[in-house]
């Protein structure tokens, strides 16, 4: 049943090309879902989501040239409910140089897991105004949600064990099984 062959060594589930294609598709889906890009703003979550947010924004701005969609970065570490478990990643600072009031904000992260990061992000966004709507785009949805959160745009649904490690970069997505009992 396992989607990966060997244990304890990284297994590629998306190649660099797959990642690029997923980003292009998500960009198109965002435009389609919102009937254009009017009032759209993209916000990547520090640190894993920022490069994806930038890639999606670049793609959107190439497809639709009527207005330029702004992109920002949000550090959620001080809004988390599990502060102390994850340290603040120094240098990964919030940078949202535009007002979010009335905007449709697409939050972007690399891997959606428990949903706690996204919950923290929604709280953090409120400090920057009241968006008209908030949507969620992720490169990987690996399941195991602990909160009622659902992505609007997904690069790939990836069944995982809870203690697996999933890493997503522009070079591809890799999964490492941490549990020797996985079959």
């Amino acid at each position, binding site marked *: 049943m396992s989607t990966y062959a060997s244990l304890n060594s990284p297994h590629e589930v998306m190649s660099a090309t797959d990642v690029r294609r997923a980003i292009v598709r998500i960009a198109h889906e965002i435009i389609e879902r919102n009937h254009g890009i009017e009032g759209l703003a993209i916000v990547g979550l520090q640190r894993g989501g920022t490069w994806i947010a930038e890639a999606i924004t670049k793609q959107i701005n190439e497809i639709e040239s009527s207005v330029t969609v702004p992109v920002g970065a949000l*550090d959620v*570490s*001080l*809004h*988390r409910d599990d*502060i*102390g*478990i*994850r*340290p*603040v990643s*120094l*240098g990964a*600072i*919030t*940078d949202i140089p535009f007002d979010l009031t009335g905007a449709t904000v697409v939050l972007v992260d690399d891997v959606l897991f428990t949903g706690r990061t996204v919950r923290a992000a929604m*709280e*953090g966004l*409120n*400090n*920057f*105004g009241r968006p008209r709507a908030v949507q969620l785009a992720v490169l990987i949805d690996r399941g195991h949600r602990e909160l009622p959160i659902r992505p609007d745009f997904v690069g790939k649904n990836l069944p995982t064990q809870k203690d697996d490690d999933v890493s997503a970069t522009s070079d591809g997505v890799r999964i490492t099984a941490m549990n020797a009992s996985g079959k």
Partner: protein
Amino acid sequence: MKHLRSIDELGHSGLLEILQLTDHMTEINQRPVPKVPALRGRTVASLFFEDSTRTRLSFETAAKRLSADTLTFNVSTSSVNKGESLRDTVATITDMGVDAFVVRHKSVGIPWQIEQWTKASIINAGDGAHQHPTQAIVDCYTIREATHTARFDGMQITIVGDIKHSRVARSNIQAFSMLGAKVTLVAPPTLLPPDVSHWPVDVNHHLDEVIPTSDVLYMLRLQSERMSQGHVPTLREYSEQYGLTQKRVARLRDSAIVMHPGPMNRGVEMQIDPSDVKNSLIHRQVANGVSVRMAVLFDLLGSGANLGGQA
């Protein structure tokens, strides 16, 4: 890190980390709503046995912006006046459930003494003429912000005035030299400690000699409240020799920075209005005070190690 009582306790890597963490707090303070829930449920007590405006208020502001609760202990209206000892005072406040004490006291070493009576984290907000670590972090952060460099290699920092009574000077000398700056002290012999040969500093008794070569001119307050005997002949003579005058400002390098930890003695060490100095960072020092103290509180109370210790 459990306590912050001296720059030594923080160490070089700790100092760099706090400076980086402060960048995150500065960003929060620029938001339309400058408040995050990071320290919800934590309580910070300020225990000030000496007067303070900016340190106490900036700690309280910092705690509130991180959603911690604050208790303010006011010596003049407390049971200390009925003879309650420091130990009992600390024990009493500890029993109310506090996670951190911010302590200022006229005696050296009080923050270390208090550690034996409480499980809470202790932040030194000034103990006698010994240490004032958060002020030193604020000053490093302010210089870093103004010069856009994290390392102070080759930077010439001149600290002027009442070194003898200054905990700010002691903490700053350590922190500035940790980051690579060259520190020169300028003061009359009576306002220097008896022996500074083991400090990483040069000493000069003439302000005019070092003005043209200073990158940072750090003015200290003449602490007349601590002066039991005559350390200076007259205030007027002191201010003529060691005060910042228009003439001296004119001889500063174009890029030179002027700082003062406050409160200022106008007409003594500051003979001019700081707003007349092109590169005065005195207001940045106050503004950054809140961000730095947020970083310190978060590091002590929000870090994994400490949370694990309490759970």
